């Protein structure tokens, strides 16, 4: 057991293959759903290069320097298969910079589905295959085998923890959401209900979201957020072992722009934190084994880290989303029995949760945060492009002799 208090910094790296403007008249004639023309809002190469420039490259530069300067600094990353492929194709220098981080031995990579999918909730076999694909990709590119698991959008329930325990993972991540935590603090290690070895780390959403969502918000009463102020808040729970700061990697430079001072904040954080020598940093697996579980975490319902509801409604809340995803998984057996790798891969790319997020009508009337992340003007455009691609998949299945 560690006698030091640890920040567990965990960043999630992901880009989907966005579906191009793909019309009903394209169905049966072209199958390039993910290849938007250059300059188009859904052009994946453009987006990856843009985010590389704004976020991945500068952030990794800071992280590399922080690792070199502070021997106690550590962090964890999850990087989806879909974004790794796109780094290989469109921004190899970004991949190289992640490889340098991992090579320090102080950056843990967390397991998940290759395609950032919700397959766990629709098809367990498909889910497991995607987890294997991701593990193999990590082995190939980084030479590591993950010991901690996170599911897409930090979705979590008892079943998932049970599965991850049986699969041999030692840690699993979830939102430290009040409805599940009750009076308990997220700053401890917990044991998921009905499991034997695995431990759950729960996100401290208040402090995580201060950085991820509120950092550059000038109408926030705490603006501007300094490391001093932040550590004051962190030190309020000085007698609790962990501080789980989980967020999207793209917080740095993409959601919070460089001119907000976010990089300065990031770089100053370990220095300020480690100034107290009872403080340290840990990776997720390390944190799970360094402290005993204080209680059992029972979570029969599915929680995620999204919206104020912290459930799956951002992806599966309306009929379009529900219809689209169940149509897609309805093709599973036919798709798999074609043994056609490019068809299977296209089907998997359509499973990426972002496609369903773009179809969300919740808050659409307020022109909210969902719109910021969508390349489409409306949820309906997202749905139409997606369903046309789906119909083309069916066309290809029919061509392959499947009984669609």
């Amino acid at each position, binding site marked *: 057991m560690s006698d030091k208090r640890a920040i567990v910094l965990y960043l999630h790296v992901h880009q989907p293959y966005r579906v191009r403007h793909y019309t*009903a008249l394209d169905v049966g004639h072209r199958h390039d759903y993910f290849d938007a023309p250059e300059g188009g809002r859904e052009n994946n190469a453009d987006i990856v290069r843009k985010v590389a420039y704004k976020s991945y490259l500068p952030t990794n530069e800071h992280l590399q320097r922080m690792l070199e300067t502070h021997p106690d600094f550590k962090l964890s990353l999850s990087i989806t298969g879909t974004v790794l492929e796109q780094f290989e194709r469109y921004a190899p220098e970004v991949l190289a910079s992640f490889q340098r981080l991992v090579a320090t031995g102080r950056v843990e990579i967390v397991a998940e589905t290759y395609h950032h999918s919700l397959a766990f909730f629709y098809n367990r076999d498909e889910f497991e295959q995607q987890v294997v694909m991701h593990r193999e990709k990590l082995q190939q590119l980084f030479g590591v085998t993950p010991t901690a698991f996170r599911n897409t959008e930090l979705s979590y329930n008892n079943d998932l923890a049970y599965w991850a325990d049986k699969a041999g993972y030692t840690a699993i991540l979830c939102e430290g959401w009040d409805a599940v935590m009750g009076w308990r603090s997220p700053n401890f290690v917990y044991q998921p209900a009905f499991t034997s070895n695995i431990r759950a780390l729960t996100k401290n959403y208040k402090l995580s979201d201060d950085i991820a969502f509120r950092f550059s918000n000038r109408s926030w009463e705490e603006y501007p957020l300094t490391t001093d102020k932040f550590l004051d808040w962190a030190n309020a729970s000085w007698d609790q072992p962990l501080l789980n700061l989980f967020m999207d990697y793209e917080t740095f430079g993409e959601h919070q722009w460089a001119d907000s001072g976010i990089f300065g904040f990031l770089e100053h954080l370990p220095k300020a934190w480690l100034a107290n020598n009872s403080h340290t940093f840990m990776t997720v697996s390390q944190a799970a084994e360094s402290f005993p579980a204080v209680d059992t975490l029972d979570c029969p319902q599915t929680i995620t880290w999204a919206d104020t509801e912290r459930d799956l409604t951002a992806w599966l809340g309306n009929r379009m989303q529900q219809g689209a995803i169940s149509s897609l998984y309805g093709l599973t057996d036919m798709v798999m029995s074609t043994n056609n790798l490019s068809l299977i891969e296209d089907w998997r790319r359509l499973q990426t949760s972002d496609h369903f997020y773009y179809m969300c009508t919740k808050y659409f009337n307020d022109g909210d945060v969902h719109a910021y992340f969508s390349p489409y003007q*409306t949820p309906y455009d997202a*749905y*139409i492009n997606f369903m046309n691609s789906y119909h083309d998949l069916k066309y290809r299945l029919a061509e392959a002799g499947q009984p669609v």
Partner: protein
Amino acid sequence: MKILMLGWELPPHHTGGMGVVCYQMCKELAQSGADIEFILPYTAEFPNIDFMTVNPALPEGVTEVIGSMAGSTYDSQYFTYVDNKGNSRGVQMHEHQSAYTQYVAKLARLNEYDVIHAHDWLTFRAALAAKQLTAKPLFVHVHATEFDRSGGSYGNPLVREIEHMGLLLADKIFAISQATKDTIVREYNIDPAKIEIVHNAMELEESELHEDTSVNTFTYLQIMQSRGYKVILSAGRLTIQKGLIHLLEAFAKVVEKRPKTILLIVGSGEQYAELIEHSAALGLSGNVIFTGRINGTGKTWRDAFRVANLFVMPSVSEPFGLTPFEALLQHTPALISKQSGASELLRNVLKLDYWDIEEMSNQILAVCNNSDLEITLAEEGSAELANITWKRSVQKMMHHYQLHAHKQKVLHV
């Protein structure tokens, strides 16, 4: 607040959306305490209207003016004067416009009003005469400009002249959309500070529809729907401005992919024959149904919106466009052109450029082939209507009435 309101039509005796707009607006104004005297160019009964006084503009010696609501453009309307001996004679629109002006001038001299409120150029001369005589604040309400009606060209110079005078001399201009405000500023050189945007809404209740049918008009379409057909609706005047040729072109592509699709075209107008010929030439005779003119506040009209799986308004130019609101009111999803004023306001509808035929067929097919899309658009769209109310617009109008009526009093004490 006593208002002299100058309009050209009211339902059920009307040809376009403007009458429906005036009706709903005045109803809400009356609820907010306004006392409205509404002057029409023709004699008619309005059993639904008890919230304001409606008077026909009768020339000297004429006891009744019969209007032709032939469903065509306003310019080609004609009127019939009937005198107390029962003799009648027909007059052209321009002659009757002068008679309307004289009547309003007489009225303005006799009675005391707080403000004058005039709808579109047909009433502007009368409005200017009333303002000249009484010095009361003048509000002109722009539903469409000559620029819009002529499909984005100069249009009729005489009409432009009248519009310009009205816009210049008005104390305040109410424009029904941002697009209309922009047109007024750009085409008529009017100070934008003088223009307020007052959006329309659609809140007609079931009891306000008149009984022009006792049966469900579209049972045939319902039977077809039960056999897998989908019904696309277009409703409005059949004029170039409405972009229906583009719709036919797009619909031909739809039918190629999905033969079980029907296009119901409701309305009449100068393009009627052309559209029939064009749909025949495209081989669509079996898929396109023309109903001819249907009154816009009757039950048949409502039934058309109710039976449809998708309403399409592909207008080339549409200062506002009330029909998509009618569709959403009947829980029917709408597809509208980005060139319409309604697209400023509505979020949960499909939008496209009117010329993008391929995208139009894509979106129509998407709704026909995915009932989840049809249902979500209908649900979210009609929920959105709840926030687009006449109350909101009328509060704004009342505020400006009061401001100017007060200013006018201060100046004349």
